[in-house]
């Protein structure tokens, strides 16, 4: 049973981590909560659904088609995030810290209701990307889907790590995250870097949306809200603004939820209470999250 629960927790944690990365990247640069991120995730899933109907003609089914669907949905979600930033956040960037948050809430409402009105008011079935097989490992049932989800999430996290740590643009991103004004003085165009960050964050959100659709088999206009709120919690748990922290927080939250429902009697209905209580306790011990750096006194 433990092995099975660990597998369950890994899948859940992988999806949370991917979403949490989107929050943390944006937060790292702008110290703003991108409230519309959950909607970007939802749109990623819907784009993948649309592409799944179109793509087999181009790429064929199987892994190539899957990869095509993935990459295009990620690009689309990233682009949407960039557009949101340009029109809803950038004009407010230097005005006040909370104004962009309200604008983000507005964008989130618009996107969710837009999909509700113009796309579908109901759950839509999400096609199974490849034939699903199952294997038994140590008494646990693992589906090929879970393997795909975990593998692609880890691959994306690896790519992100490489991108941020070893490329020039990644270096610029880190510089902006440290101090955006000084970075500007060093010849980095902050608008470009911010847009890029939103693109990367959105693309990761889009990928999470696709994985989410594949894992649960159906998608709906309001699918983004709950995992979005939870992933945001995960990002804070790990230390918001910290990339490794977001991944760690996502997996911890995934395991926490699995353990609460799986091992505590009547735990399912108290699961979120337990998760949030742990969050509060962790933050009381480490006020900047698990891996977060101590905040400067004056932000």
């Amino acid at each position, binding site marked *: 049973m433990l092995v099975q629960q660990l597998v369950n927790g890994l899948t859940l944690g992988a999806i949370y981590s991917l979403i949490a990365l989107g929050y943390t990247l944006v937060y790292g640069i702008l110290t703003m909560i991108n409230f519309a991120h959950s909607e970007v995730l939802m749109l990623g899933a819907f784009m993948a659904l649309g592409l799944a109907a179109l793509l087999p003609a181009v790429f064929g089914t199987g892994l190539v088609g899957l990869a095509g669907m993935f990459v295009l949905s990620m690009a689309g979600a990233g682009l949407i995030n960039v557009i949101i930033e340009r029109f809803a956040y950038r004009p407010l960037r230097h005005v006040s810290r*909370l104004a962009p948050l309200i604008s983000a809430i507005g964008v989130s409402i618009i996107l969710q209701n837009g999909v509700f009105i113009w796309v579908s008011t109901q759950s839509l079935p999400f096609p199974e990307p490849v034939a699903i097989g199952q294997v038994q490992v140590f008494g646990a049932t693992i589906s090929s889907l879970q393997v795909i989800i975990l593998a692609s999430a880890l691959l994306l996290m690896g790519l992100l790590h490489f991108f941020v740590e070893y490329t020039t643009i990644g270096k610029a991103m880190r510089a902006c995250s440290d101090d955006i004004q000084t970075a500007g003085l060093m010849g980095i165009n902050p608008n470009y870097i911010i847009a890029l960050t939103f693109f990367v964050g959105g693309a990761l959100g889009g990928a999470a949306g696709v994985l989410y659709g594949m894992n649960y088999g159906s998608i709906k206009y309001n699918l983004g809200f709950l995992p979005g709120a939870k992933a945001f919690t995960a990002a*804070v748990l790990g230390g918001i603004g910290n990339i490794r922290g977001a991944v760690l927080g996502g997996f911890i939250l995934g395991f926490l939820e699995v353990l609460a429902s799986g091992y505590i009697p009547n735990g399912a209905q108290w699961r979120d209470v337990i998760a949030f209580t742990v969050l509060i306790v962790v933050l009381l011990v480490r006020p900047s999250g698990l891996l977060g750096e101590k905040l400067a006194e004056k932000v």
Partner: protein
Amino acid sequence: MKKILNRRWTPWVALALAAAFPFLAATLDAQYLVRVGGVIGLFMLLGLGLNFTLGYAGLFDLGFIAFYAIGAYTTAIAMRAGVPAPAALVLAVLMSLAIRALLGLTILRLRGDYLAVVTMGFGEIARLTINNLDGLTNGPKGLQVAPWRPLAFFSADPNIQYYLLILLAVVGGVMASSRIEDSRVGRAWIAIREDEIAARLSGIPVRHYKLLAFTISAAFAGLAGGLFAQWEQFVTPESFVFWESILVVSIVVLGGMGSIPGVLVGALVLVGFPPVMQWKLSADWINYRYLFFGLILVLVTLFRPQGILPSSRREAELTS
């Protein structure tokens, strides 16, 4: 616009209009708006409450609706146990204050967005606990509350009774807020919000004042929750979802943080807009109600990023 607002008589005219509104509405055949006005009033109270935490002390709270829920459930449970309605309201306020103080003592050392996510967590913990403690709260099935008809001598319509009662509470809330705002305490909060370290160095006991602002907020929410329970005669966990916390934050930020008239106008716009849309939109457009709401939120923020009626003190600081 600015000139009108700064006139001495402006608040009195607004108050007279608000008090006369139920009777105006009756002649205009718009009694529906009296109900809507009452709900707006409840959210004005919530906004005034959160304004202490968010507007004055600058503490970001995403779970404020928990205290509205605590007020509502305290009132409902007390009244079912036979406590008279006005005493139940007092209990609601005290209970909200007590829980808020305990929460504040625990979490106020957190900063900025860490505080936001912890309060969000508390909001969800409160709602889920209410939903899960079936023995005390009857869980998802909710609690019936016996009707209380204050001002029955004045009007037979419960909507008018509660409208006036809530108006009274809002007037009291505004008076209390402005008194506190202009006091030593209020100035200390502004100092903390603008520069915590400088405030501390000037000898302001920062922790103490933060806790005070955080706690006072709950009195407003508890009162609003109690009135809500009595008016609806029924409470259920469905009323206290995360979205409502976001709505209250939006009211304060969109209205103008730290600005009392701003908060009132914020509640008027954000809480009034969907019901008026409900009334005026034709059947074909009814699904678009919240799409328009989102648009309003974005547009107003883009055009008035400081809030619709920012506090004069804040505005002066920002333009200088």
